[in-house]
């Protein structure tokens, strides 16, 4: 009996098995607003998000999970989405820049950006997060003062699969 127990114990080795855990990361883009933009009113005929004009630049964050899968297309406004009634033309200017990156190599996005009319296109060639800020300025026709009221304008931030 003693020999039998000893013999069996030799076979009582711990059961080992490798259980694989697999997963895939698919291409994904997430857009978040890090900071809301605010129009400053440095002179009566101008509304501007530039800090020097008393405004706040909107900051938009793009997170992409896979490199070289998306482009970021950011369009600055060319009209107000809400405003008091305006009887004269409004001249619009704007631009979009890279302000912060999670990967050092993303700083090259700024030099490689393509501007098509009021849209700035960034090729998101690296995975990670990129922060963009959009400047927007509106000047009322013939330097007239803007009518009192609330003015809002829309920045369109698009993440488009390549």
């Amino acid at each position, binding site marked *: 009996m003693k020999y039998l127990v000893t013999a069996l114990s030799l076979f009582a080795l711990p059961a080992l098995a490798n259980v694989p855990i697999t997963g895939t990361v698919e291409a994904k883009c997430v857009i978040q607003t890090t900071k809301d933009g605010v129009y400053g009113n440095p002179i009566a005929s101008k509304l501007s998000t530039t800090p020097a004009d008393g405004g706040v630049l909107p900051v938009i964050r793009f997170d992409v999970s896979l490199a070289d899968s998306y482009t970021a297309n950011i369009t600055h406004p060319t009209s107000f989405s809400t405003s008091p009634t305006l009887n004269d033309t409004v001249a619009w200017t704007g631009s979009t820049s890279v302000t912060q990156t999670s990967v050092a190599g993303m700083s090259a996005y700024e030099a490689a950006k393509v501007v098509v009319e009021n849209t700035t296109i960034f090729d998101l060639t690296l995975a990670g997060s990129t922060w963009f800020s959009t400047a927007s300025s509106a000047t009322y026709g013939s330097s007239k003062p803007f009518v009192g009221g609330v003015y809002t304008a*829309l920045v369109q931030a698009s993440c*488009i699969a390549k």
Partner: protein
Amino acid sequence: MTPAYPIVKPSHVAGVVKVEMSLFNSREEIEWYQIELFDLNWTNIPFASSYRIINIGYKERKSFDVYIRKSDMDEAVYLCTTSKVRKTSKSRTLVSSRICSRLDGEPA
């Protein structure tokens, strides 16, 4: 919105295909997203879905199917969701975000 390159599957209706999509809302200030389908030149293409505009809470995920006519599949390229922003009482810029998947496959 995922996947970036959805698989086009047959549907239960002859001559109609479907794509299965999932949308995650990462923007606290947004509750509504609009689904749109475009060709390469950003011209709208007709489609059917349970939702045209989806109500989705912050940090929530919702799945939806988009049904497209087979005859439109040669033209259909971008399937997008666009956030709908609320009217505000402050002079400010609002950010409308749009995520687009491609129906014509991954880049070679």
